């Protein structure tokens, strides 16, 4: 499975477009992390707990997108985009979408 955010792969020809595939994941960290992040806000710096949260979310969103692509018989997802939103306080939503294609 090739996942890229460019639209045309120089060495591959697209045989078929299979439409939009998307993956999303909403995750939250336990309240201890929230409290630590709140304290960290005083001193500044990286909020490791939240970085981790976003990474986990992103990985899961990608996984789900790829799962959709596989389900429709694609072997690549092109032009992938990510977007983040906060549906609830302390929870992060990561969303990945792209075009599923069959490459030669």
């Amino acid at each position: 499975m090739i996942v890229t955010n460019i639209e045309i792969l120089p060495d591959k020809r697209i045989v078929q477009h299979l439409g939009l595939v998307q993956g999303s994941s909403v995750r939250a960290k336990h309240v201890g992390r929230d409290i630590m992040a709140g304290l960290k806000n005083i001193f500044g710096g990286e909020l490791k707990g939240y970085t981790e949260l976003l990474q986990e979310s992103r990985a899961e969103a990608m996984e789900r997108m790829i799962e959709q692509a596989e389900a429709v018989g694609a072997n690549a997802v092109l032009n992938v985009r990510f977007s983040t939103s906060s549906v609830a306080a302390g929870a992060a939503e990561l969303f990945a979408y792209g075009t599923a294609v069959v490459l030669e």
Partner: protein
Amino acid sequence: MIDLIILVTLLALGYGFGSYAESRHYKSIIARENTLRHIPAVTSRFPPMNEGSRDAALVSGSVVVSVDYFKRFIATLRNLVGGRVTSYESLVDRARREAILRMKAEAEKLHADIVFNVKLETSSIHKGRGNSIGSVEVLAYGTALKTDQ
């Protein structure tokens, strides 16, 4: 004590109506997805130049969906212990598919055959109100084209 009764009532109402509304929404989404299946939506920016694409037009669709009390309650608890907030997953899923469908419906009205360069934006419009309402707004937009295929 009275608080508890109110809470249980709200939870029961939320669960009953929420799951009914959700399953109905899913049914309608799946039905409309099937009728609009002839219009693919893709994220690529470049339509094929040799196939006589014409009549480019911006199409968009947006929707605001809110969760029910029951799901919000679960999400709040989940927020304390961490992990996957499953009760919001179906919310955003429904919102995205609905927004894409509305975009496609607009494309269909223009007799377009395909939507290019689709982009999706998610935002939560309730932000100013202390996160008291769990709702999402999804905007889907792209360029509808006619092709001579």
